[in-house]
């Protein structure tokens, strides 16, 4: 049997329909409202340089006595965790009775090019933790790290474990030299010193292109062809544009922090080896003895599952738990499936460890 069940007139019809969809879709584009992101009520409670610490307004009468601080990655923007109604991990956590704070790193300027990981971990994060502890008169906080924010959270916990009660890492790379880590492979032999000495801060556009080049045919090509199928549906188009806004909303990376992160984490795999040095101290994950929940995505093309799973063998905690999400790196925060799975699991896990 010939596998092609296409006829010429059907092909022309299909291409004509495709063409006319594009043309009629123009009207939908014209009618679109402003693309808004971040739906949960929040207020800025602490600011330091470009960094802002937000406190989300509780949605339940009673909250977990230990507040949760979300540490986002330095790449991209944190509103992805609170994208829109029905696709907000933050909202899910608030509904679980968790008192949520989140760090917004802002947009580094050239004056920030000398910020190091020490400034981020022992500076900004520690200041935020101290602020929350003072404000809530609690002795410790719960920490949730997202992607690179998970790496920063691990470093922070290793150095300031006395202030952290429970640690949650989500799609966090730990072992940067696993077999399928395309991103790690790409940067392995790049002269990072030359890059940072030339560029200063690393532009967001450069990072964008690196991430898109992991799956160029799907992310640069197919995505826009598939867009034609939804172009006449205003809601779906808004969802698409919201994600598109987030994908291309990339802050620059502070040069020195970028240099250290790529060299010590990606190139030298220092986190598992215990050679990452922050503020004069080596990060030793074996010292982490508090409860840990490690959440990873099975189809993550940015952080391979093996890279995240490696955390189990590195920490000294006797209360280590893991949660596997059947989805991708971004889907774990924005998909409908994730909202039903992740916040309730986190809520229950934290309630069991009050």
């Amino acid at each position, binding site marked *: *049997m*010939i*596998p*092609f*069940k*296409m*006829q*010429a*007139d*059907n*092909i*022309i019809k*299909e*291409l004509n329909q*495709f*063409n006319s969809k*594009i043309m009629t879709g*123009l009207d939908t*584009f*014209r009618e*679109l409202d402003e*693309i808004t992101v971040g739906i949960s009520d929040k207020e800025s409670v602490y600011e330091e340089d470009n960094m802002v610490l937000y406190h989300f307004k509780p949605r339940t009468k009673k909250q977990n006595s230990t507040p949760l601080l979300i540490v986002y990655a330095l790449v991209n923007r944190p509103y992805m965790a609170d994208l829109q109604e029905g696709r907000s991990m933050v909202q899910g956590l608030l509904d679980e009775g968790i008192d949520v704070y989140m760090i917004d790193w802002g947009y580094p300027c*050239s*004056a920030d*090019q*000398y*910020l190091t990981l020490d*400034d981020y971990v022992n*500076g900004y994060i520690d200041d935020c933790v101290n602020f929350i502890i003072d404000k809530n008169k609690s002795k410790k906080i719960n920490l949730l790290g997202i992607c690179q924010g998970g790496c920063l959270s691990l470093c922070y916990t290793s150095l300031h474990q006395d202030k952290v009660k429970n640690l949650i890492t989500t799609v966090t790379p730990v072992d940067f030299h696993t*077999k*399928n880590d*395309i991103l790690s*492979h*790409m*940067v*392995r*032999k*790049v*002269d990072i010193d*030359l*890059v940072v*000495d*030339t*560029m*200063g801060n690393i532009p967001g556009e450069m990072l964008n*292109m690196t991430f*898109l080049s*992991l*799956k*160029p*045919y*799907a992310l*640069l*090509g*197919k995505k*826009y*062809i598939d*867009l034609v199928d939804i172009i006449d549906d205003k809601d779906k188009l808004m969802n698409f*544009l919201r994600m*598109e806004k987030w994908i291309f909303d990339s802050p620059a990376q502070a040069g020195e922090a970028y240099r250290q992160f790529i060299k010590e984490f990606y190139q030298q795999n220092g986190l598992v080896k215990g050679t990452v040095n922050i503020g004069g101290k080596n990060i030793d994950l074996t010292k982490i003895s508090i409860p840990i929940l490690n959440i990873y995505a099975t189809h993550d093309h940015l952080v391979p599952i093996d890279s995240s799973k490696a955390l189990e063998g590195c920490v000294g905690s006797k209360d280590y738990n893991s949660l596997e999400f059947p989805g991708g790196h971004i889907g774990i925060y924005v998909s409908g499936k994730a909202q039903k799975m992740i916040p309730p699991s986190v809520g229950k896990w934290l309630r069991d460890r009050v």
Partner: protein
Amino acid sequence: MGQKRNNPLDSLDWGDINKKYIDALGEYSAFNPFMSEPKPDVDSLLTDSMDNWWQLLKSGMPNKNKEVLDNMLTQSKNFYLLGEQFSKIMEGMNKFKLKNKKFSSFLNDKFEEIESFLKDNQNNFMENMYFDPYKQSPEAFKKIFSNMNLYDFQENGFKNIVNQSLSSPCFGSNRETQEKIQESIKLWIVYQNNFFEYQKNIAKLNKKSLDLLQIEILSMHKREENISSMKQMYDLWVEISEKVYGKYVLTNKYADLNSRLINSLMAYKKKNNEIKEEVMSSLNLPTNKSLSIIERRQYELRKKNKELSIQLKGLKEELEKLSNKDNSKDSSANETQKKKVLIGKKVSKKVGKKISKKKPSTSAVKPNVKKKASISKVGLLNKKINKS
């Protein structure tokens, strides 16, 4: 049962008829009075009409959505190009019998045609597919060297011409500037060569993905699965291309190539920055280097300031603790002092009473001895209080 009727179209090549239908449509477009040259391909009919439509409407589009629409239209052109190529597979399909061997060799021929199309430098398929974000640099250079085709790099033509121009005696305001500019252009050539090698390797992946697509179609044929639309074909091609690409980028060869490309670009950029800095400083304009120095100092001051604030806070807390301690000592010292006074009063009352009861003596010596004794008692009492 009834006799099997013969289909009058049995003897005709159905695939040929379909292809002729498409070609006729393309030829019809040759009558379009708005087109300068007759173009017999359907993809050009569709892309040209889309281009004309977009040129008319682009200016009226809201700016924020223009980029997304541009990307969508660029990829749609690629979709049409692929559609045209894949539709050629239908030509001559009915001519052979359905044996795997003949079908596979037929498919082989058709895929070779598609491969030559993708290799053809005159179409923009690869540029639009993969290099669209990267083509800004080559396009900028195209404007400078407008007579050159960028693909002249393949024959080392451009490299030879540039090397020739570099060997001319004067290339800048002074010898050092000339040397730096020459170095910069040499670094640029290294970058361009690396970029070309990168493009070449990515283009090779196209051939590989076409081969795999061919194999997949044959296996679909065995599994009796269908491809019923151009979109399905496109999706299958994307899936296979991603697999091929994903496998390739995990090789050491790619890691080397990628790092050479980035390192050479950075080296070229760094050299350019040095030249720019020199020019700016000669014009007494603030340079990036001087700004970086200021920013570095500001960062270090900020850090020192923070450390000092923390120290100050610590000292304040210590001071507070100490002052609290002193306050509590003072209050206990005050209490002690009060007690002393009370006891002292009591003692002096007692002593006073004793002294007043005694007869006045005529001897000067005796009263003194008695007074001393009373004083020493008070002194003893004070000592005891102090000790307590």
